[in-house]
């Protein structure tokens, strides 16, 4: 009897702690941002949000994050495939290196790209000869985003590939399916939920990236200024409302994506 009571108290306390943690760390700041952005009234919010530079920054961020996500969907799926299906020396090392972009300060990632792709580097020089510049232009931002969001798709696809039984493929062969047909009709559909949910996470992370991008983007307003850097600039120039207005846009966007990810995963679980 007493142990039951204790158990109930314990579980009540545990749940309350988690809820409190959640409220203090996540709910309050979010409410704070929404509140702050409307603190000077709807008109000020509308003003800040319709500011062309703010709009351009948000649109540019969405566009480049989308490009980075599509690139990651392909490269990530292929990398996951290679890491699971092939056996080669160094595979374990490579597999552990996948998480490097998560562990590395993003500013370090930015610096790496800066040194690697600058006009005086070999890669940057080659691009220059071909007639375009990477650094301080949009390609550099995409590269930075691809780098920091690289692990998402791989880590989402790997478990699906791992749990996939080779007998499913063999069954397709005995039923007369060619290797290509088996890939498109059996293997890819099994990986798809992972590719999609990994891509969603990569996209929302790409939207939010600051550290790596700020070093390589050049931050020219209206051209290579992305949303997070715009927010930083607004705070620096003491326009908190402008910063929160863009934040609210990004936040709402991220929420929508998170919900979609959850929906995709739920559907996967319930078949």
């Amino acid at each position, binding site marked *: 009897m007493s142990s039951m009571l204790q158990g109930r108290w314990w579980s009540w306390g545990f749940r309350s702690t988690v809820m409190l943690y959640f409220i203090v760390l996540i709910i309050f700041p979010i409410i704070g941002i929404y509140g702050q952005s409307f603190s000077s009234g709807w008109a000020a919010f509308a003003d800040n949000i319709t500011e062309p530079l703010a709009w351009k920054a948000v649109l540019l961020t969405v566009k480049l994050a989308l490009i980075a996500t599509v690139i990651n969907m392909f490269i990530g799926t292929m990398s996951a495939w290679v890491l699971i299906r092939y056996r080669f020396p160094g595979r374990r090392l490579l597999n552990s290196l996948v998480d490097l972009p998560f562990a590395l300060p993003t500013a370090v990632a930015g610096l790496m790209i800066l040194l690697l792709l600058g006009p005086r580097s070999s890669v940057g020089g080659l691009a220059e000869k071909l007639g375009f510049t990477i650094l301080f232009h949009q390609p550099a931002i995409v590269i930075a985003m691809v780098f920091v969001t690289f692990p998402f798709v791989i880590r989402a696809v790997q478990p699906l590939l791992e749990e996939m*039984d080779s*007998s*499913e493929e*063999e*069954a*397709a*062969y*005995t*039923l*007369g*399916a*060619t290797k290509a*047909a088996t890939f498109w*009709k*059996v293997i890819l*559909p*099994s990986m798809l939920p992972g590719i999609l949910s990994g891509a969603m996470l990569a996209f929302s992370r790409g939207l939010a990236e600051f550290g790596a991008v700020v070093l390589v983007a050049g931050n020219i307003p209206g051209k290579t200024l992305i949303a997070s850097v715009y927010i930083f600039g607004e705070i620096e120039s003491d326009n908190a409302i402008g910063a929160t207005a863009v934040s609210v846009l990004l936040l709402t966007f991220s929420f929508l994506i998170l919900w979609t990810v959850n929906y995709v995963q739920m559907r996967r679980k319930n*078949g």
Partner: protein
Amino acid sequence: MHIEVRGLNKKFGDFQAVADVDFEIEKGQLIGLLGPSGGGKTSILRMLAGLETVDDGDIVFHGKRVNDLPPQERGIGFVFQNYALFKHMTVAENIAFGLEVKKWSKQKIKERVAELVDLTGLSGFEKRYPHQLSGGQRQRVAFARALAPEPQLLLLDEPFAAIDAKIRHELRSWLREMIDRLGITSIFVTHDQDEAIEVADQIMIINKGRLEQKGTPWEIYKNPESPFVASFIGESTIIEDVSALRGFGGSGELPGTKALIRPEYVEIGKEHDFELLSATETGRVRHIHFRGSEWLVEVQIGAAKLVTYRSLEKEILQPGDEVRVLIHRAYLFNDTNSWVMENKLKEDPMPVHI
């Protein structure tokens, strides 16, 4: 489809999985590949399917060598041990898969799927996904999917292993009936002798990659060609020194000859139960076990311990009781030979003529 296999060999690294296997299967037969786990049964099945390459030897379907044909072109259906259903497809889509990749017309696919759903008793489940089905239903979907493209040969790898005992019995007889009706040549792998005996027209006993014996279940039970087969099929006890047993003296002239005695070869009872006491041994009951429909009795004769069954209708024995034991026959074997020997004293040595 008529199937012929000659000198089949398969190695995995240093491990000889299949060694010099030859056999021939008539059209329309249901064959059981029976043997202990890891004995090479599944490797043989997978080589027939083309899922495994052949190291040496020939596989001939219908007079045509198929060694180099990929699984797609062999005209086979394969039912996997874990069913290997496509998880993201419904029952109907699973069954239709083989027809779609063969570019059947929509109308024909629809008809064929409906026919198979009907045949396998899956009506009403067409729109379900595999994880919404029971084990027995999944098994039937796997079966329907394998049969859909009208294969000439059906291969089943441990088809009932993952199903609980009760449903397994139903599915066994269902499968037997289905294959009889379709008349399709079928080979299934099992390690369960009851399953093989109950379902198969012919059994092939596979051990350590070798084909030990091929024949009807009755032939294999009655005339096992090797000690392995004798001990693998049915229950048995091995007796080291058979000459010590009454009625089998003189069989030990070859050193190292051992005897395999099945419970059904042994009869026990009180003195008045036997006409020829001279052919019986005196033994003592060690243990009795109730087996649901009969008693299993362990009886000690000298140094040897034998096991036998006893009808529930007969007088109940108790551990410690002294009984008479009649051994009707024994399966004798040594390193070079094996033969069945009847109890010599069972024939009345001094018939009394009146």
